[in-house]
């Protein structure tokens, strides 16, 4: 049994909220740069050049890449041999978010009630997911998620007969419907299988995998590649002004499902596809 004080979680989450909002992960930055080099269409090239300039300014001036600094999605993999001491885990995470969003001059974008809509003023609560895993370490990942892209996401409960084709068409159709709204170039997270609730989580987790790491199953790796090609053939382009670079990547995550079902979910992320991770 190893002891981790939850105060350390507060600090880690605070730091990651700030870091994730200022520093674009290298895999995403590389794809934006590469996209600009490959664009034949002047408005698209110009937009991608400005996006590179933007994340470079954010890095240099230590300000957020985007003004929508998101809701804080926090994923924890907790080793089962860890004992947590101090304030409760969820409180520690929220305190980290509270401090990070205040000290990092990040935008507070959370309302306490979905219908009555009063801002909580400190960007809490976080959307916390905890998985218990083997070992005596703790992995924390913070992914601030903007809602321009979140709003363009979709979920469908297909009959099994819809098959591979039904799921693929659903993904492409979702991107087409979203058009310029989610700040293309986008990153597309696809969940297939599980249940109604699980498939959405799969799609969200798909967004966390680096873009240069294809699915470990060659069948799904090929599907990721095919979907990316089909999406970029739509011609929506950066900002929706036409072009080659509609998506920077497509990641798929799957889970076993019921004999009667084929759930599918598409979680759209924008080019500001952010996350930071720490191991305690």
């Amino acid at each position, binding site marked *: 049994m190893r002891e981790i004080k939850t105060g350390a979680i507060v600090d880690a989450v605070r730091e990651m909220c700030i870091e994730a909002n200022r520093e674009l992960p290298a895999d995403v930055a590389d794809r934006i740069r590469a996209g600009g080099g490959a664009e034949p269409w002047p408005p698209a090239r110009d937009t991608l050049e400005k996006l590179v300039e933007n994340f470079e300014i954010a890095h240099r001036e230590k300000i957020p*890449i*985007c003004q929508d600094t998101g809701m804080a999605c926090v994923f924890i993999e907790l080793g089962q041999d860890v004992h947590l001491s101090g304030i409760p885990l969820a409180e520690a995470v929220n305190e980290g978010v509270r401090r990070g969003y205040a000290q990092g001059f990040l935008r507070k*974008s959370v309302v306490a009630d979905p219908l009555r809509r009063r801002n909580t003023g400190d960007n809490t609560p976080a959307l916390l997911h905890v998985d218990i895993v083997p070992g005596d370490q703790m992995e924390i990942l913070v992914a601030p998620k903007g809602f*321009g892209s979140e709003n363009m996401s979709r979920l469908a409960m297909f009959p099994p007969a819809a098959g591979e084709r039904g799921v693929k068409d659903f993904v492409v159709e979702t991107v087409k419907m979203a058009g310029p709204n989610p700040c293309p170039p986008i990153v597309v997270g696809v969940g297939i299988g599980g249940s109604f609730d699980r498939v959405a989580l799969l799609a969200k987790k798909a967004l966390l995998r680096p873009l240069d790491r294809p699915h470990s199953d060659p069948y799904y790796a090929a599907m990721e590649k095919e979907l990316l090609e089909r999406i970029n053939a739509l*011609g929506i382009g950066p900002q929706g002004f036409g072009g080659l670079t509609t998506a920077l990547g497509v990641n798929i995550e799957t889970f076993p499902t019921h004999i009667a079902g084929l759930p599918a979910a598409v979680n759209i992320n924008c080019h500001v596809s952010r996350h930071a991770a720490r191991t305690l």
Partner: protein
Amino acid sequence: MTGIEIGAPLAREEALKLRAGDAALISGVLYTARDAAHARLIELLDRGGELPIPITDAIIYYVGPTPAGPGRVIGSAGPTTSYRMDAYAPRLLDIGLRGMIGKGRRSPEVIAGIKRNGGVYFGAIGGAGALMARCVTAAEVVCYDDLGSEAIHRLTVKDFPVTVVIDAHGNDFYEIGVRNYAEGGMKP
């Protein structure tokens, strides 16, 4: 950065000259408003009240900036998705609003309002808030301070880069741009 230089507030005659796909640089005064502020403005109009901003020829920027850090005028300040303001925009256009800056598609009702009034819808680059913040030389809260980032701000901007997405004649660059690109390498 290059583009047609225009001022804000923007006269109708100037708006009429703009064409979908034009790059423009805006200098002058913009007012910020998002969902919550729009709801209040419309409620105010319903009650017969006077708007807290000079609406004639005004350009509203759909943005909720991040707080300004030490020594800064404003934090990150890029556009939010515009369709959420579609329910309110025609009403404001009809009483003098000239331009809107945001990102993403607009409803047929907003496009009709733009045509009817000689307005214009500009797109700023979504997710480039750090870049655009550089063009803001002054920022102050006008009203609705309780809304935090969603309060109405008065922004003074210099060479703020935008693209004309929907012009006063109803042309939509989200359609034209994608079509021209698909047809192969024509100049936008």
